[in-house]
């Protein structure tokens, strides 16, 4: 399993729902959560594959900031 961590600006209920729908539709994703309390609105994804680039691309396309948080 891969754990993918991103810094985002997904900070509203609507944004959370929109991105949630997008992530739930992705079959490789086992689980995900956004830490709304954190300043970086950290998106944490547990995925069967390392689809980091694809996720960044899709969330950016939806109009949000999404950058991988370095180790």
């Amino acid at each position: 399993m891969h754990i993918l961590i991103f810094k985002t600006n997904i900070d509203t209920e609507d944004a959370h729902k929109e991105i949630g729908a997008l992530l739930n539709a992705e079959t490789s994703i086992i689980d995900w959560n956004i830490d709304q309390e954190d300043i970086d609105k950290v998106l944490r994804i547990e995925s069967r594959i390392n689809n980091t680039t694809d996720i960044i691309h899709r969330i950016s396309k939806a109009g949000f900031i999404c950058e991988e948080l370095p180790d």
Partner: protein
Amino acid sequence: MRVRDTHKETLVRQNAITMLLRDGFDGFSMQKLAKACGISVGTLYIYYKNKEDLIIRLGIEEGSRMLKETMKGFSADMPFAEGLKKQWENRAAYWLKNKEAVRFYEKIKRTHYAEPILDEITRSFKPVMHAFVKNAIANKQLHFMSFESYWSVAFGPLYTLLEFEDKGKSVGNRVYKFSKKTMYETLELVLKALTP
């Protein structure tokens, strides 16, 4: 690929407990914790989903460790006096050796995080303690009474002594150091009160 590192997990656990005790649950954040550990926020999120997940899992870990130590050499079929003595010895030993972890656990018990933690850790502990008390009553080694009366008499005095030890002072600012002598002396009185 991101890999788990047990050294980092230990470092995170120790720093988190220290920070939570110092700053409280509201003053605590994943960002501050990462900084204190000298690791990136990204790394911290590999181990924990968010602040709540971290606090609950730390509570479960510390609570389980404590209960495991409490149950060492103890079994539900022990005679009441012997079993309670073992419980006192185990609880005192754990408290004295793990003061920070105990303080953390006591603090977390008074928050909304307590419920999922207690649900998880008392699952195996509860039936054993329940059977112990049931056996003791059936064997006429313990008076029948409400659970709260039982617990406060059976364990309250021990925790009072341990709290004195924590402060280094007892009532009226008297200097106090926990000793087996005072522990057994108190236990004897507790047994007198509880047993027929």
